[in-house]
């Protein structure tokens, strides 16, 4: 069973498909690290992150736009990490920052849904890798004319704006992130790398409708419902 072919997201630019591998840069928005304050120097962390901090959103989490995300019966709410994600166009291995954007096929919106995280010490797979916890879309936008380091990301719940952020505040801007990530792991055509979400993450409850708007890329919507026990 290949990893891919899971999410039929329209992709009209090469490679015309997603591979199914989705990575997310965590703590890459200044607001996310700022929220932790001096805690980054205390146990268990002891120091701010040096290399990019990444998570894997496995194939069971992937969902297209306009889907239903189910919140488990024993949880009140979920966190929504609203990300711009890039799609890799061809194998990217230790790409120099100056040429990193040549490897980007396009952009989309990635909703990194998670049960509320109490700590960033462990990967939290039970919280972050639940079925349907990574809606993507609405389509892969052609990268020409898009400056992924100057995009507005707005999050709405039931129509009310709950977060407004900008990718100018990424700690590692797109090209730098790609250079640093591909220093130790090759990204392949169709892989997605989410660039980092602002914090605090908006929290959604069952019954609410989420909308993430990124002018130039599109609008990603989904609905939260209570999972049957």
């Amino acid at each position, binding site marked *: 069973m290949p990893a891919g072919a899971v999410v039929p997201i329209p992709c009209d630019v090469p490679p015309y498909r997603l591979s199914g591998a989705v990575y997310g840069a*965590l703590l890459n928005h200044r607001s996310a690290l700022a929220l932790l304050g001096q805690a980054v120097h205390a146990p268990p962390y002891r120091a701010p*992150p040096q*290399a990019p*901090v990444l998570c894997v959103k496995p194939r069971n989490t992937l969902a297209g736009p306009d889907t239903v995300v189910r919140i488990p019966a024993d949880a009140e709410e979920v966190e929504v990490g609203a990300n711009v994600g890039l799609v890799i166009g061809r194998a990217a*291995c230790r790409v*120099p920052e100056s040429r990193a954007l040549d490897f980007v096929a396009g952009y989309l919106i990635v909703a990194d849904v998670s049960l509320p995280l109490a700590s960033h010490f462990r*990967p939290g797979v*039970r919280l972050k890798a639940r*079925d349907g916890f990574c809606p993507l879309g609405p389509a892969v936008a052609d990268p020409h004319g898009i400056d992924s380091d100057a995009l507005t990301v707005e999050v709405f719940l039931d129509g009310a704006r709950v977060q407004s952020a900008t990718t100018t505040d990424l700690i590692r801007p797109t090209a730098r992130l790609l250079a640093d990530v591909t220093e130790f*792991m090759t990204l392949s055509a169709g892989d997605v790398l989410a660039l980092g979400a602002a914090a605090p993450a908006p929290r959604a409850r069952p019954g609410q409708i989420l909308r993430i708007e990124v002018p130039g890329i599109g609008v990603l919507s989904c609905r939260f419902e209570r999972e049957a026990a």
Partner: protein
Amino acid sequence: MKRARVAHAGAVHDAVAASPACGAAREADGTGGEHAQLADEGGGEHVRLADGAGGEHVQLADGRIVSEDAVVWLPPFEVGTVIALGLNYRDHARELQLDSQEEPLVFLKGPGSLLGHRGRTRRPADAAFMHYECELAVVIGRPARRVARERALEHVAGYCIANDYAVRDYLENWYRPNLRVKNRDGCTVLGPWLVDAADVPDPGALGLRTFVNGKLTQQGNTRDLIFGIPVLIEYLSSFMTLSPGDVILTGTPEGVGNVMPGDVVTCEIDGLGRQINSLAADAEFGRGKHEVPCESSI
């Protein structure tokens, strides 16, 4: 049945272990030794070549029988989600001076980290401590969602050997173990075979051994897993649907040690065969003093 995926003569093939009765000649591959005395509980028609002299053969789906060194070994199945366990043997947790935990320590890996039997893995020059981890890999065969431990093994297609390398120098206390430690290119070695679950009567009592350059360095038994296979499947499937091709790397016992370029790491698990991996220097990958760009300028 022992199943593999190999590249040979211009194509990728499904393949199975070929019996010596098929008549192909054995040849020494120079990497063996006396250590490969395996207890093969798989039995059946596919007799294990237990003499450690190499010379295994595979039969391709099109009927050809090919020597093991005439193929490129790929991960033995189409790999889906790679789920790995940390600190899942009591002795290894002690070795790292960590308390065992109430909930399994799970982390995920991406497809770029995968490598087959006899592959070469880069050993970064700037790291002081890169170590192997011999692990039993459990491969899912039927979708699993909220499966009770009593029925968990019904969802297993089979088992294989995994060597899940780590570069400890890069550990940071953020989402630990972070991907820079555990998701490096070529650092998740799977194979040579996927052995059908029916041929592994008790996956909870398999001996694991690692040899570095022929010297035994790591030894354990899956009976010492903190969270056994049925419990892991129950736990994981309680929050994520497991699909065919998903693989659970169940953790490694004590005995991890540093490896260097040129070292040959052999991992064995009772009944699953013997997996060989070699460590390569940065230079082989165009890194280091004479840096070669990955993709030359257009």
